[in-house]
């Protein structure tokens, strides 16, 4: 496949592994911010092939994992209402709220639909004027432009039966929170390539300066991830802390200006709770005042919801890189993808699910006898 096979080439991967081994002289802890990168690392077995000195810490960049329990519970409450068509990205359906998930609400009669784009939900609202269509607008800066566009379009079309349950989160404040945590072990970051394709990387330059930490914008294919790791290790070994872009085919310093302009129109910055981590100041987006009519939280009275997180789940520590999924006492026992206690076990981008799916059993070597 053109534009993909080039970035999965085993010979070039081997050369990059050799380069990384050659320059690594001591242990380094590097965090890949994005869940998509975690998925790629585990799915391709990259972590097993890196030198043992390099520890990859899985960051909080899985949108499904960090969406707070209270918002999930609000989603469940709204989706269960008669007359509502509740639209969501597919992998949110299995995230456990306090008692159930969206699949369960659907099986109990709720009209829950998987859509591939928030604009499909706008289309549904147009074709079903008698129904309240609600879109579950979650994610990082990556999904925000499409979600913002959906609200913008609904407003232009004057759709009164469309609203969005918004729980957007932002990467730079999370990096600040991690660096200022007294338990932080992260020495360099692989920034999330697709977030940066929207926002650029100028936002990260002050973080590099303030915390003296290397940040490398990194993509998602195996060679992208390896190149990101190689550059991060090179900086660490040389005692440098710089902003680098290892994903230039998708990312420019200034990012996508029209998208940013639309985001600034539709959203405004707010404090946001991150599931398993807590409230990070100024770390999220909510709908701006002039679009408040499209805010599902305001339209449906779901303000007072009591939440109950599993006491066994350590997903917060996993999301902060303090605990490997396999070090959690519940991992693979009472907590599996089939019976998840926390969101990190739910999404295919969640660190726990990635470990369970791909890394639970790693044989030393699997030579295949026949060519």
């Amino acid at each position, binding site marked *: *496949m053109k534009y*993909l096979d080039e970035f*999965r080439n*085993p010979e070039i*991967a*081997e050369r990059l592994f050799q380069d990384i081994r050659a320059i690594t002289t001591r242990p380094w802890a590097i965090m890949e911010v994005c869940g*998509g990168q975690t998925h790629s690392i*585990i*799915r*391709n*077995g*990259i972590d*097993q*092939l890196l030198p043992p000195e390099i520890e990859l810490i899985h960051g909080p960049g899985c*949108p499904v994992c960090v969406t707070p329990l209270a918002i999930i519970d609000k989603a469940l409450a709204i989706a269960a209402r008669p007359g509502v068509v509740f639209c969501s*990205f*597919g*992998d*949110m*359906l*299995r995230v456990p709220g306090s008692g159930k998930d969206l*699949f*369960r609400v*659907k*099986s*109990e009669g709720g009209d829950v639909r*998987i*859509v*591939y784009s928030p604009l*499909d939900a706008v289309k549904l609202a147009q074709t079903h004027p008698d129904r309240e269509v609600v879109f579950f607008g*979650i*994610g*990082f800066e*990556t*999904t925000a432009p499409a979600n913002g566009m959906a609200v913008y379009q609904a407003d232009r079309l004057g759709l009164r039966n469309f609203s969005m349950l918004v729980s957007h989160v932002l990467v730079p404040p999370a990096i600040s929170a991690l660096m200022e945590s007294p338990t932080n072990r992260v020495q360099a970051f692989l920034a999330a390539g697709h977030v940066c394709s929207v926002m650029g990387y100028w936002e990260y330059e002050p973080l590099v300066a303030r915390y003296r930490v290397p940040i490398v914008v990194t993509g998602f294919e*195996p060679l992208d991830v390896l190149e990101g790791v190689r550059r991060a290790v090179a900086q660490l070994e040389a005692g440098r802390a710089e902003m680098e872009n290892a994903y230039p085919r998708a990312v420019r310093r200034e990012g996508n200006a029209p998208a940013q302009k639309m985001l600034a129109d539709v959203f405004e910055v707010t404090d946001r709770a991150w599931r398993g981590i807590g409230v990070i100041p100024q770390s999220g987006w909510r709908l701006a005042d002039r679009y408040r009519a499209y805010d599902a939280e305001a339209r449906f009275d779901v303000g007072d919801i009591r939440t109950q997180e599993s*006491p*066994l789940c350590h997903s917060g520590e996993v999301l902060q890189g303090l605990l490997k999924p396999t070090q959690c006492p*519940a991992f693979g*026992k*009472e907590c*599996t*993808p*089939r*019976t998840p206690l926390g969101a990190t076990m739910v*999404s*295919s*981008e969640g660190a726990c699910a990635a470990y*369970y*799916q*791909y*890394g*639970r*059993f*790693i*044989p030393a070597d*699997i030579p*295949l*006898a*026949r060519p």
Partner: protein
Amino acid sequence: MTSAIDFDTWACPAPLRSYPTIVMGHGGGGRLSSELVEHLFAPAFRNAALDTLGDAAVVPTDAGRLAYTTDSFVVRPLFFPGGNIGTLAVNGTVNDLAMMGAQPRFLTAGFILEEGLPLATLGLIVEAMAAAAGVAGVQIVAGDTKVVDRGHGDGVYINTSGIGVVPEGVSPAPNRAAPGDIVIVSGDLGVHGIAILSVREGLEFGAPLASDCAPLNGLVTAMLTVTPDIHVLRDLTRGGLATALNEIARASGVGIRYDERRLPVPTAVAAACDMLGMDPVYVANEGKLVALVPPSAADLVLEAMRWHPLGARAAIIGEVTEQHPGVVVARTAIGGSRVVDLQIGEQLPRIC
């Protein structure tokens, strides 16, 4: 955390605890489906023929061994590139019989029709079934029709059952995989699932793909001609290659390893999967099988498959090992390794 809990001995006490109602995942062919079978149906109906959990039951009769199976078809949309619900209903049951090494002979067809279904639509489906039966060499010898109120069905649901004759000396079964066996797939993976997705409402992405829906009994006969000693045959329907290999590994108590680079995956399938965050090894097929054969017969079987039109892109992808029993491991494109587990329910497109 409660200190009274001893994590070392903690185990999940109730397998069906998290969903007190049926959810869509129970029909997805993954872990939820298999739990429903293992914890509800199999214990309730327990008998020797059922307990092998093959694609079809093989039952002894005075006239020899018969393979017997049933399958229901609920598909949206009813018509898709490369076939319709009728072709699926015939080929699905024919293939389940063929996976026991049986020669399919007779099918029955039950129709659940929704009020308001155009007769012309039903006519097209039935014609397609007749044509598919002709290609597969089976007769549809009995049937039933029920009609449900408008809004209580998706137009047409079809159930088929089938009977086939198992030749002497032939007994492929999911629990017969042995260390050293070679794993062969019959061709391009994921075509049916992506063809269906590409025309599903709300997701039209115009993939140049037609379903691979086809009867596999001819291909199986060609394989059995070169060796009757094929250990396992499995058609790769719902849940795809990964689900079939997991079921075989568990049933036989062996490990299975394969090399991702050897998987025949068409570019259009790979591209669609990348876009949707899905994995081709979990995507449904309707005209593909996996065979586990002794190493001495592998080259002959592969050769026989490649001579057959439905096996032209057959490939050896891996082998059976006594290590990691019950677990399927893939060697990744860049030389790492990963566990390929059962999915929970249906594959869900990822958020970003």
